[in-house]
């Protein structure tokens, strides 16, 4: 990046490729300079299936963002998603050697390394090791053990991993456009940075980002990432269901979903129909509104139920004080809040990225949560990076800071 205080987030989504360029201002706030956008092709379920086509889309979006922000992008924070991404929690332990009692940076690094030492399939690699809690000599609730006295340091981490080659595909796509990848971030974390404030994270919150190809979710409990997951089902599936159920072409189904999509059952008048018009405006078939709603309802309910089951399985459902936040393109379907409240048995709301300075009014929209979240992530990393200290402390600070905020 030409200037140190400008960040770009790149989300290669199933529906659209989105680039957000933002500037960190002196008062430590973030200002969006421009957002570039291009419809995606060659991407299915959040993963690249046609490299050349996808590369062209990314190129278009980057050029668009550069034009709008008047900044030349050289480095991006890349959002990653896809059904191959998995996660688990693990605890690392480090016992200080005889004669030393003060916990130093090396111990923090060691405890992290220790937690990462788990057997993963050969093809997988770790994406994130996110600190949840530290324990010093069994004492709970240590926020930062650096400099504390103790004999034994333990730490819980949330570890996210995925299939190496698939992650590399996205990175290569960026590389071939003569751009650097500053960091790879899984989409759900990025999204959480955009839609949750500190308070929500402390209270406990579940963020569900229902995008085009994937549904990403993350659970924050007491300010720490407790659980995350990716389900390779999204808005595309709703479109596909409509296309099969109503026997209409995919493009028509997509349009119908956006214009008329509703998940509320029993809301339509009996026999109420929607007339499908072709491009020339002539009335074609008629379909019943209730049929449409039912198909959409079934799919969305299933997606939410899968998330609910996974959160329930980890027993996190009772810790979501701030409730459920739904975002992403598919969260615009009417009635989704009601449905989600029903599935989770707690308040659920659809949400757009939190307001930021800059040209944001058009982008305060659920679709842009992840891309804006990437810029926020980059900003947080930047804020946590003291200039005077060594690289080790930088990484440590960075990782402790972000996910504890």
């Amino acid at each position, binding site marked *: 990046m030409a200037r140190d205080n400008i960040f770009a987030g790149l989300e290669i989504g199933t529906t659209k490729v989105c680039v957000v360029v933002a500037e960190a201002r002196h008062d430590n706030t973030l200002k969006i300079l421009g957002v570039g956008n291009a419809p995606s092709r060659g991407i*299915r379920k959040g993963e690249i*299936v046609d490299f050349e086509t996808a590369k062209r889309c990314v190129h278009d979006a980057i050029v668009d963002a550069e034009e709008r922000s008047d900044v030349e992008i050289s480095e991006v924070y890349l959002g990653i998603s896809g059904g191959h991404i998995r996660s688990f929690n693990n605890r690392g332990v480090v016992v200080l050697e005889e004669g030393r009692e003060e916990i130093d940076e090396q111990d923090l690094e060691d405890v992290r390394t220790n937690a990462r030492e788990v057997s993963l*399939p050969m093809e997988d690699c770790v994406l994130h090791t996110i600190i949840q809690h530290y324990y010093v000599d069994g004492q709970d609730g240590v926020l930062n053990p650096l400099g504390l006295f103790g004999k034994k340091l333990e730490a819980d981490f949330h570890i996210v991993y995925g299939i190496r080659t698939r992650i590399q595909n996205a990175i290569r796509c960026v590389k071939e456009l003569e751009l650097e990848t500053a960091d790879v971030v899984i989409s759900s974390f990025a999204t959480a940075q955009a839609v949750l404030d500190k308070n929500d994270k402390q209270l406990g919150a579940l963020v569900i980002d229902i995008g085009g190809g994937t549904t990403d979710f993350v659970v924050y409990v007491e300010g720490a990432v407790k659980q995350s997951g990716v389900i390779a089902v999204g808005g595309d599936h709703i479109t*596909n269901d409509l296309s*099969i159920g109503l026997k209409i072409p995919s493009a028509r189904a997509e349009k119908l979903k956006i214009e008329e999509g509703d998940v509320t059952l029993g809301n339509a008048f009996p026999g109420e129909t929607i007339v499908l018009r072709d491009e020339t405006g002539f009335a074609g078939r008629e379909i019943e509104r209730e049929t449409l709603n039912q*198909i959409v309802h*079934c799919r969305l309910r299933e997606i939410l139920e899968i998330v609910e089951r996974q959160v329930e399985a980890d027993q996190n459902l009772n810790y979501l004080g701030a409730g459920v936040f739904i975002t992403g393109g598919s969260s615009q379907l009417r009635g989704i809040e009601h449905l989600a409240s029903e599935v989770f048995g707690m308040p659920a709301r659809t949400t757009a990225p939190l307001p930021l300075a800059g040209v944001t009014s058009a982008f305060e929209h659920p679709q842009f949560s992840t891309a804006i979240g990437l810029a926020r992530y980059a900003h947080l990393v930047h804020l946590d990076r003291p200039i005077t200290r060594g690289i080790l402390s930088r990484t440590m600070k960075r990782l402790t800071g972000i996910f504890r905020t």
Partner: protein
Amino acid sequence: MVQLNSQYGREENTSETRKVRVIGVGGAGSNILDRAMLDGIDRVELATANTDVQSLTGSVTNLKIQLGRNLTRGLGSGGDPELGLAAAEECSDEIQAAIAGYDIVFVCAGLGGGTGSGAAPYIAKLAKDAGALVLALVTMPFTFEGRRRCAQAAASLQLVREYSDAVICFENDRMAELALPRMGIHEAFAAADVTISQSIRAMSNLLLQPGLIRLGFDDICSVIRDGDARALFGFGEAEGENRAHDALVKALRNPLMHRGEMLASAVNVIVQIRGGANVNLGEIGNVMEELNRHVSDRTQLMMGIAIDSRMGSRLSVSLISSLGGNPERLAKADYPALEERERLEPAPTPTAAALPEPVVHLQLGDEPSTNGRKIEVPPSEEAVILESAGNRPSGHRTSKKEVVPADKAAPKAAPKKIEAKQEVLQFDAVSRGRFEKSEPTIIDGQDLDVPTFLRRRVKVG
């Protein structure tokens, strides 16, 4: 919690082992055994029974029984099952002699022809009468072999089922996917034989080899008997750094597995992992975790682990299951051998029954016995049974479920599963739409690319 059974010392001193006889009946049966012989199979004794002397002399097995010495005079049975049956009846003494003293008898036959269709049920009956546990592995003819052969095969299968404790049925039509259409017919049949011989090998290994986590005949029975005898079988072997993953992928790729899709509708699945001394927990964890993605929540995975130094650096994964469950058939079926077995079984140890959490339960010799004889695990330091109440049901629980299906999970789960299976099968070919060619998203055994309203059978429109 680790418990050492008090019988440990005693069991170590006995040298009695389970004896297994594999009988190939008819031309197809002996081909399968030849293949098994070629691939190497140990600790089981093979025998061939055929009417056709020419085919019989070509067989490599040690014991050969010529059926219908006077009736067919060394010729085949000409595709007549009645002739096949009469031929077998003629030399029932020889057959009985071949079976006598064996605890477990595998009957392998290709149904549809004369000798296989006619003699196999009879041999199964003799084995059963002799008190052995009978496991039949049969192939069904290709559809193009004509209606008559298919009908003969179906009728014979019915009989075989009646006399066997468990039947694994390989449909040639499905096996045909193993071979390319252009492939020579010999190769095609050979490919099918390989699959069957693999399954014999896997089964006999399962039964005979000492295992860290051992699976017994009761487990196999419970898995196969629940279904409608359409076996799902997969076998994969691999070596190298990623062997666990590769072996499972190979096993799932087996045509009898339908790329793992069929697993979604299975109620019980046996998984056996074999490897050399260097098998590690991570690899087993990876296999099981990956497999869990292919099965539904209700599926019971029975895991067996065997350490075999001859495997070297290789690792193999065998999957055995059967499709669907028919609770009515279960309820009506009469399994004298099982009831007998149950009576003879040692009373459930209080630890196994009472502990709510999975426990590591080290014991020796708490195996179900066969026809009064105590079956024991070959004494070796590997021969310990690690039981976890969550994963692997102890012997008495499994058999109870079979005998009294009304009070256990099987009938509850089975009707549901049938429904799900039909849904998937019914729509699978047409309804993945734009996701037809993409990697399937399977969660809890459901293919999420198929529209939800179709899978849940919500009536729309």
